[in-house]
């Protein structure tokens, strides 16, 4: 074959092959173009899918945010509701407890054990309910982030002793031994004494409650750490203990170790939850170790320095002394208008009269003979004296004569009490009254009340009728004259008609409330010095306290006090204020 022919053929094949290659290239280009188009379309589809997804997510986020806001609002509303409810519940409950106490005293005298038992049950149930309501209020305040800490120095050893003293009767009743070990360097800490006490009280109270015929030991130690000193309070018992499963649920709200525990031991199950949260608010914590049937150890650790808020709880630090009284002259301990000197050589009679009178609000000093009587009368300046006639050494007549012969003492009324009916002799020697033994208790009280009536009128401003009733019964028995008003407007009218010596004021009232009443009262120069005692079941905010600061003598929160404490407080402060106002 000729070379030229070979080349021609080869060229022909190359040409065909090139054309085939070009065709293939054309096809591939088209394929690529279509693939590209397809890709673009898919990208667009995916993009719009993603956009739709994002819009959906945005909507979900908005829904979630709205749901969260609604939940927060609901939570706030719930806390507010709980706080209001607690107030609304506490007011009538205080009245129930107060009335039960009054009835109990009256019924005790009748000697009907069934009635006494029933009333004691009413009283106990009321107290229990009150403590539950306080727990719920505490919890709602913690949850609402409205815990306010009153920070001041705390002597740790004293606080421990105080708690132990409170719990000891219950411990002994359950056959438990209490051991306290307080390290020597325990010293003091800065914190809210009431909250620390409440938390420790809860731990010790639980230990005693869940232990029978065993021991409860309280160890207080000071831990020195790089971040400062800590106080560690460990409460160990030999009680029923807990399983790990029970421990894991221990600090939940309304949770006790298990439901049967609640039936057997009572309680709301809120105490521990509250205590732990309070400790955390104060920068510390409570931990627990326990073995079933061996016992439990609860350990509370708190920094000794002033606590700061934690767990998202807003903490308002308040110095305990921020509520300044209007003004108070020092050393007002003058002769007490309610002290009775009881003179009798028979210890049984002395004890009996002392009991009667103490229960009726008198303070009693009892002495066994005339010599001691003449000594003590100068020291205590009693409001009245009950004097037995037949006594060894100095007899009653001689003592009466000595008293009446002394110009300093002659004005003190003396009630002769004797089995000898010699009224005429008694009156002629200057006795205020003459009672024949056995002494009629009611007659003695009637006479003493007449002799020891308080010099002042108290205006009670309170919208709750039952609370007014309890206050009236209690204060009248203390010898006060009462004027009542059911709201601030009526109260201002009463003050205008005749200014009282003191005012006991509720804050939450219809028409004109306590705050407005105070403002009205302090506007008039001549009323400005009338002492006011606030007694309220309301939870006071920092702003409320600020408004009351310098306006009132004292704030007493119902529910936080025993009724007896409350009455003693009212009496003491009112008496003090009246005495002060009577001084030249």
């Amino acid at each position, binding site marked *: *074959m000729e070379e030229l*022919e*070979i080349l021609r*053929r*080869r060229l*022909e*094949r*190359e*040409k*065909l*092959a*090139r054309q*085939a*290659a070009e065709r*293939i*290239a054309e096809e591939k280009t088209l394929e690529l173009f279509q693939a590209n188009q397809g890709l673009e379309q898919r990208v667009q589809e995916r993009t719009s899918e993603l956009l739709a997804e994002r819009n959906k997510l945005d909507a979900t986020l908005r829904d979630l945010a709205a749901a969260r806001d609604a939940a927060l609002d609901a939570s706030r509303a719930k806390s507010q509701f709980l706080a209001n409810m607690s107030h609304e519940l506490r007011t009538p409950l205080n009245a129930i407890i107060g009335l039960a106490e009054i009835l109990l005293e009256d019924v005790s005298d009748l000697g009907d054990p069934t009635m006494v038992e029933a009333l004691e049950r009413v009283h106990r149930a009321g107290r229990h309910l009150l403590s539950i309501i306080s727990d719920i209020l505490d919890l709602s305040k913690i949850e609402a982030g409205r815990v306010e800490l009153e920070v001041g120095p705390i002597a740790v050893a004293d606080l421990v002793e105080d708690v132990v003293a409170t719990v000891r009767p219950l411990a002994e009743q359950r056959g438990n031994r209490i051991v306290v070990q307080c390290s020597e360097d325990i010293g003091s800490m800065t914190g809210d004494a009431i909250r620390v006490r409440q938390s420790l009280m809860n731990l010790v109270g639980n230990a005693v409650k869940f232990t029978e015929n065993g021991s409860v030991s309280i160890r207080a130690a000071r831990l020195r750490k790089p971040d400062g000193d800590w106080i560690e309070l460990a409460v160990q018992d030999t009680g029923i203990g807990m399983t790990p499963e029970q421990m894991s649920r221990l600090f939940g709200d309304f949770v006790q170790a298990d439901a049967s525990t609640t039936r057997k031991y009572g309680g709301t199950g809120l105490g521990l939850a509250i205590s732990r949260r309070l400790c955390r608010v104060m920068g510390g914590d409570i931990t627990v170790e326990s073995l079933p049937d061996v016992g439990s150890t609860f350990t509370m650790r708190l920094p000794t320095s002033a606590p700061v808020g934690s767990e998202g709880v807003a903490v308002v630090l308040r110095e305990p002394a921020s509520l300044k009284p209007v003004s108070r002259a020092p050393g007002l301990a003058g002769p007490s208008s309610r002290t009775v000197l009881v003179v009798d050589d028979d210890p049984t009679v002395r004890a009996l009269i002392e009991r009667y009178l103490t229960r009726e609000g008198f303070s009693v000093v009892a002495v066994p003979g005339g010599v001691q009587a003449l000594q003590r009368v100068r020291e205590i300046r009693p409001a009245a004296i009950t004097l037995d006639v037949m006594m060894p050494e100095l007899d009653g007549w001689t003592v009466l004569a000595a008293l009446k012969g002394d110009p300093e003492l002659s004005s003190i009324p003396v009630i002769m009490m004797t089995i000898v009916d010699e009224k005429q002799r008694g009156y002629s020697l200057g006795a205020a009254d003459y009672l024949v033994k056995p002494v009629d208790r009611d007659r003695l009280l009637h006479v003493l009340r007449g002799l020891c009536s308080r010099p002042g009128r108290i205006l009670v401003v309170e919208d709750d009728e039952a609370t007014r009733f309890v206050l009236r019964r209690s204060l009248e028995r203390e010898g006060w004259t009462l004027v009542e008003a059911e709201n601030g407007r009526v109260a201002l009218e009463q003050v205008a008609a005749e200014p009282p010596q003191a005012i006991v004021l509720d804050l939450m009232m219809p028409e004109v409330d306590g705050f407005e009443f105070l403002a009205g009262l302090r506007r008039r120069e001549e009323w400005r010095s009338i002492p006011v005692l606030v007694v309220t079941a309301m939870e006071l905010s920092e702003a409320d306290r600020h408004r009351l600061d310098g306006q009132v003598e004292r704030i007493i929160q119902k529910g936080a006090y025993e009724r007896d404490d409350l009455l003693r407080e009212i009496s003491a402060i009112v008496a003090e204020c009246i005495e002060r106002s009577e001084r030249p």
Partner: protein
Amino acid sequence: MKGIVFTEFLAMVDDRFSPAMVERILDGATLSSGGAYTAVGTYDYREILELVGRLSRETDLAPSDLVRAFGEHLFGRFVVGYPQFFTDVDDAFTFLQRIDGYIHIEVRKLYPDAELPRFECDLSQPGRMVLTYRSSRPFADLAEGLILGCVNHFGEALDITREDMAPDGTAARFLLAARA
């Protein structure tokens, strides 16, 4: 079969024998492509069998020897044309192992309709490889030539033993062992 096999075959005939030999084997052959091949095209595999047959008759060389020789030549062209498959590979066993798992996967991305043979590797015995070739086409000889080309490329001293598993050349087992 990919066009590169045909263009490389004719290039080899042109080179090893003569341009006139190319014309002789094409002349009178019944090829639907007319013998005009482009590397990017795809052609009936039977055309290569016919071309090999015609070359055998022209040269008096056995078709299997010709195909094996072409396989060795083709491997050399792969080394030049597709260097990306040879980076990080230092020995024949490693390369042969990568045919099914890597090279053929890449080929399929470019030519989705390509019909590729399978190469199964068994390395259970140290220093030995058993490579099983299976195809729908009878190219065990081509596979052998490619394996030879591979071993030569890496300059290794390996004995290659072939065991046919099918009489038509669609399956064969190759034992590669270090020369004693």
